[in-house]
């Protein structure tokens, strides 16, 4: 029985172009660059960044978003092909470290020191929408590329696609974001990254089923 089955598969056989991982990196890089350009045209880059003298908090949040984004992208690329015993858990540690931002916001809120303007800032909603839209574009690009792949851990790759696109989308927007300090990104950036992570975690296993 299986002999006939194998013969049928062989009859369908033809040369294939090996699956490459570089398009994943290219899609993410293009998404960040195009997202940043779009945000610059809409809102303008922060003056301190333009002058080459960014505030300390801006440097820290940019580094955190970039690190979470890259670590999640590395994990996504690793998870795109089947393999057992792959160590691709670095993104979890990096994401755990980045919780310093929401934890700061929670601490300030719990101690009554969270400034009202952080919650009511009009830039907050703008931040959430712009970051999420860029994340949606990056995530869509990644999922389109991954449809040629063979991910065998669909839930995990859902998280990594969501975190990568959320962090990198927020990074692109953050270059124009007027929000100060640690608590502001702890509220609004965390919101954008979490929306993206949860949405892709739910959608990816259905979209990449094979």
């Amino acid at each position, binding site marked *: 029985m299986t002999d006939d089955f*194998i013969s049928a*598969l*062989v009859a369908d056989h033809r*040369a294939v172009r*090996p699956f490459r991982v570089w398009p994943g990196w290219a899609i993410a890089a293009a998404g960040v660059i195009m997202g940043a350009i779009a945000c610059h045209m809409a809102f303008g880059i922060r003056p301190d960044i333009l002058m080459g003298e960014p505030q300390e908090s801006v440097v820290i949040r940019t580094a955190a978003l970039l690190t979470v984004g890259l670590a999640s992208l590395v994990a996504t690329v690793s998870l795109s092909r*089947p393999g*057992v015993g792959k160590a691709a858990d670095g993104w979890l540690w990096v994401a755990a470290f980045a919780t310093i931002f929401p934890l700061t916001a929670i601490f300030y809120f719990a101690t009554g020191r969270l400034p009202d303007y952080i919650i009511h800032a009009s830039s907050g909603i703008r931040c959430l929408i712009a970051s999420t839209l860029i994340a949606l574009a990056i995530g869509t690009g990644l999922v389109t590329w991954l449809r040629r792949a063979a991910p*065998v851990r669909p839930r995990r790759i859902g998280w990594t696609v969501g975190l990568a696109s959320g962090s990198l989308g927020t990074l692109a927007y953050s270059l124009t974001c007027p929000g100060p300090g640690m608590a502001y990104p702890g509220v609004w950036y965390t919101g954008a990254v979490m929306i993206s992570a949860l949405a892709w975690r739910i959608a990816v296993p259905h979209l990449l089923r094979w």
Partner: protein
Amino acid sequence: MRIDDSSIARLMALSQAGDSAAHEAVLRACRNWLTRYFSGKIPSDQIEDLVQETLISVHRKRATYDHTRPFIPWLAAIARYRWIDRLRTVYRQENNTAEMVTDSIDPEEEISASISIERMLQMIPSKQSEAIRLVKLRGHSIAEAAQITTQSESAVKMNIFRGIRRLSALVEEE
């Protein structure tokens, strides 16, 4: 034919380039390996089906194999993925109560299959494993299982659902 990793990696490279004879050799070697891999994991009468499903996946996703890397981990990951998918399918087939245990052809194989399932069941909460054992392994109805365990029918269903989900996660992590 047993799989020698470096030889089959070379054959896969040829297969990707369009060599049908190499592709056939790869699939035959995979079939033998997969048959051994699945025996002890599922009932013996379901092995051929699962082997064929996995061979289709190997055929369809052959472009994702990187021939500079070992072949067996690639094949094993695909086999595990298909196995998990089978577990989920078994759960969805609500009225098929004897899905996991069938009349055995080879008693030794059947025993090792049930040992493997038992080992997994010990890793989940007892209420969930009891519900799965009664309904999915011993063929009781939901109502009977509810009576035996003194749980409500909806609790039994929920415990089966959660238990299967946990088992899938455990297999995925293994």
